């Protein structure tokens, strides 16, 4: 359902991705790991067509992303939900409004909005905070709202770029449970993370990238040892929730 074929992306002399070929199937739960600068964000940005590949092809269901015109991008992004490390909620909107916003801007009818927003909020377990503003919530709760916003339009894929990076370990695990639950509903999940213990304990598919190349792709993988990677990566510290970025 997502297939990269010989995808290369460079930024001037920096290598983003180097001849990457990989296939992610519907319903997969994939961890994308690797040291800082490995090319994880590049991998994701290519999928969202935030950046264009130099060569190779990326196909998403029946959509060839690498050939998509700019006008096709909104359609692509409507089938991909995305969650960031820093939540990216709108501070002047309530929890409910933040989630409803994602539906309004793609022209969903108010009736559908009124039905689906509470469903999404209840799925992420935050229904009771619907009328609150983001700054009245804890970090974990804010991330739940962000997840509700990402899934409210029923995307086929949910991308999470270090979703637990700003959370303490217990809250991080709650978010992981939630993602697992979303995955069980059939949503493909691609999660970028530096959290070694989460990757190791989840026992899901792991794609390890370094210097733009795929080093490992394991069905029930682990984060990997230090020797696999660049000496200055910071995964261990980030896993503990002390991320610098």
């Amino acid at each position, binding site marked *: 359902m997502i297939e990269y074929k010989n995808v290369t992306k460079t930024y001037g002399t920096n290598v983003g991705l180097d001849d990457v070929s990989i296939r992610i199937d519907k319903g997969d739960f994939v961890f994308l790991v690797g040291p800082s600068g490995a090319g994880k964000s590049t991998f994701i940005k290519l999928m969202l067509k935030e950046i264009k590949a130099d060569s190779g092809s990326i196909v998403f269901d029946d959509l060839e992303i690498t050939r998509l015109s700019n006008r096709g991008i*909104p359609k692509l*992004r409507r089938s991909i939900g995305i969650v960031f490390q820093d939540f990216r909620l709108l501070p002047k909107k309530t929890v409910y409004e933040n989630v409803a*916003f994602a539906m309004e801007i793609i022209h969903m009818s108010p009736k559908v909005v009124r039905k689906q927003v509470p469903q999404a909020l209840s799925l992420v377990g935050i229904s009771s905070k619907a009328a609150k503003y983001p700054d009245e919530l804890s970090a974990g709760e804010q991330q739940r709202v962000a997840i509700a*916003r990402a899934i409210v*339009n029923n995307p086929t894929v949910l991308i999470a770029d270090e979703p637990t990076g700003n959370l303490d370990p217990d809250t991080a695990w709650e978010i992981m449970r939630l993602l697992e639950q979303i995955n069980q509903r059939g949503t493909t999940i691609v999660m970028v993370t530096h959290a070694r213990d989460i990757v190791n304990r989840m026992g899901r598919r792991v794609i390890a990238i370094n210097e733009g190349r795929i080093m490992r792709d394991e069905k029930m993988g682990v984060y990997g040892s230090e020797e696999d990677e660049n000496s200055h990566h910071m995964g261990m510290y980030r896993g503990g929730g002390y991320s610098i970025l």
Partner: protein
Amino acid sequence: MIYSVKQAFKQFFRNGAMSTASVFSITAILLILGFFFLLIVNVSNIVEGIRKDFDTIQVYLLESTEYAQADSMMKQIGNMPEVQELRYLPKEQALEDFKVRFGDKAYLLEMRQENPLPNSLIIKVGRIEDADTVVKRIRTFEGVEEINYYQETVDRLIRLTSFIQFGALAVILVLLVISVVVVSNTIKLMVLAREREISIMKYVGATNWFIRGPFLVEGILIGIVSAAISAGVIAFLYHKIIQVFGTDLLVMMSTGLVSERFMLNNLSVIFAALGISIGACGSIISMRRFLDT
């Protein structure tokens, strides 16, 4: 669409100071622009009038010239392709015209026993540039005392006025560019203030036009409000100008200032169009780079 308008109004009030400031600047610019517009329109109108007044060639006939001779002259002149209109003005009629035109000062002529004015031919050429050729040919006719025409004066006047018009047009263009820049800067600030929201909108799959919508409406709103204010002020001032100068000018020339109604109709249409395009261009330009990715 409804969303865009709603958002734009919300924004207009939320960023009240910013919107008001740009409305003020653009109103000021449009006011200046409006005066140059008035200038252009009136100058063209006066020039048109002058052309009409002075595109005639007066051929004064000798006292000795018989009517039959004049008639054959008229046939020849009438055959010239450049000539549009031709008429014989007997001296009695000329005197009447003179009396009408100069009213109370006509006694100067009346004091004399005889009519001092000659019979004449009045010729109108289609294009004022052709007057020279026509005059040259008539000079060769017999029975002509004098030929009067104003080509050089008119030429000089037209050159001067087209210079004025060109200058005014250049000023107008510069003012338009400035106002587009003003709008685009205002909108850019608003876009920056909502950068986060826009980036989220893009991630969730909003189309560029959907994102642009509220800012576009906002820009157009600023444009239209400024256009309405400045058009109102200009209309008022023009009304005053007409009151003061309108009739005086009419005595000096056969055409006065362009009528108030005509000006108002054109002004409102043009200003509405300007307001909309300034607003739209400004906001689209300011968002262009932003929406690229």
